[in-house]
């Protein structure tokens, strides 16, 4: 049994096949229009993926996700690291974060739309917020845990506080930051779809909810499959990158992608 699980890619394939089979079976047994059989939904995949308009919508979503995600990293990592090394910064940001963390970021969408409209800006901002929080939190924890003697060793070499933050604290905290970034990626995907669900104009979410409104359930499920695949590809890609970037770290970070939206 352990042999089989060691074949790369096999367990997820088996899981996916099992899920499809269960779906197909359930659709046949219950026979409701809201649950088309798997094969019918999968037939829609090539249709969506070859339709120019749909593709543009999907790319549009991905672009917003990338922009929101990138801004979030640029903002959240320095903030988290500074919080971890300066009591004053932590005292300032901690209460703010405690208030914002449990709020579903999509719930802020209507307010943000009042300020920024229904276009890119609102959606990108929501993605930015969703990603920032877990990244700040993990960068903060990572920076706090940096061994003091490591910083002293660097100080003795003549590094000032700023250089230590960017060139000692940051790499030392990187394994922990990566845990936050992975959670952030999942949240980016979730907030991307939910933001489009609330501010309907373009994007994957728009395809999804248009199809839903028009009772095109095959398209609805096919879109969900596309979003799921997108998440899977992103996660696998990120895991590769992470393994490469922090190969030097002690294997202490078993990571789980969990978080609030």
């Amino acid at each position, binding site marked *: 049994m352990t042999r089989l699980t060691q074949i790369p890619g096999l367990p997820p394939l088996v899981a996916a096949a099992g899920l499809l089979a269960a779906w197909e079976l359930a659709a046949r047994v219950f026979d409701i229009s809201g649950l088309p059989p798997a094969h019918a939904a999968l037939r829609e995949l090539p249709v969506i993926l070859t339709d120019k308009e749909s593709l543009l919508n999907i790319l549009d979503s991905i672009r917003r996700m990338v922009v929101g995600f990138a801004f979030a990293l640029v903002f959240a990592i320095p903030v988290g690291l500074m919080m971890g090394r300066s009591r004053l910064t932590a005292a300032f940001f901690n209460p703010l974060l405690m208030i914002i963390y449990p709020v579903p970021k999509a719930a802020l969408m209507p307010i943000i739309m009042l300020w920024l409209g229904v276009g890119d800006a609102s959606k990108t901002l929501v993605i930015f917020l969703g990603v920032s929080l877990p990244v700040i939190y993990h960068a903060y924890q990572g920076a706090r845990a940096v061994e003091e*003697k490591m910083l*002293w*060793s*660097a*100080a*003795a070499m*003549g590094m000032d506080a700023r250089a230590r933050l960017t060139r000692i604290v940051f790499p030392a905290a990187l394994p922990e930051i990566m845990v936050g970034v992975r959670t952030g990626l999942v949240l980016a995907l979730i907030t991307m779809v939910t933001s489009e669900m609330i501010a309907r104009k373009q994007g994957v979410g728009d395809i999804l909810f248009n199809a839903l409104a028009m009772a095109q359930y095959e398209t609805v499920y096919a879109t969900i499959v596309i979003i799921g695949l997108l998440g899977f590809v992103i996660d696998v890609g990120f895991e590769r990158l992470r393994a490469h970037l922090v190969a030097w770290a002690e294997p202490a970070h078993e990571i789980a992608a969990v978080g609030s939206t």
Partner: protein
Amino acid sequence: MISIERLSKAFDTARGTSHLALSDISLDVAGGEFVSILGPSGCGKSTLLYIVGGFVPPSSGAVRVQGAAVTGPGPDRGPVFQEFALFPWKTVLGNVMYGLLEQGAPKKIAEDRARALIEMVHLKGYENFYPKELSGGMKQRVAIARTLAYGPSILLMDEPFGALDAHTRTGMQHELLEIWERDRKTVLFVTHSVEEAVFLSDRVVVLTRSPGRIKEISRIDLPRPRRRAELLVDRRYQDYVVAIEKLMDDPAEVRA
């Protein structure tokens, strides 16, 4: 070289009171001298070393190095910690080169010097290993090479061999003495092992139980270079160890 003048250190405790860790320490260390600081756990040995390193400020008193008051860390005083404190994302070579590059040495020169030091601490062939791939003794060798690399005139060593097994430990003591014989840096060496202190040092400073005060300073008049196998059967070595050990668990010592 190092002059410690009436140094005291009090820490604020979580209960809001103040805890005196070091009291009125005065000590002069000559250039090229090997001085060990010995005392029971918690007596303030590390604190004393950290203050000399400039990592921790004193509550009162001062430390001067070559006449200049210590106000912070500097490359003239190189620390070696019990925890190694290597940069885990850097290879052995990267760690040893780090301080040199920081001091502005050209890459080629830094690398040559780092490779020579790595060879000196018997780690040739491990240049591209990461710290997590090394044993404790190897990590400490890297840490020593990393500190030697940027050429501090003073080494501050805080129980550097404390985390190593007995066999590795005596090996490392020999290696340290060999390195020290070459350029006779000034060394402040914290330990709680009497034998280690006697074996290595020109002078042994014994601190009292908390708060740490200087109880006695013993000069160790044993010829150098020293070999452990010879010293163990040397009467004078044994006498030093016995005398200092007696000093350490002197029941007459009561707290104020």
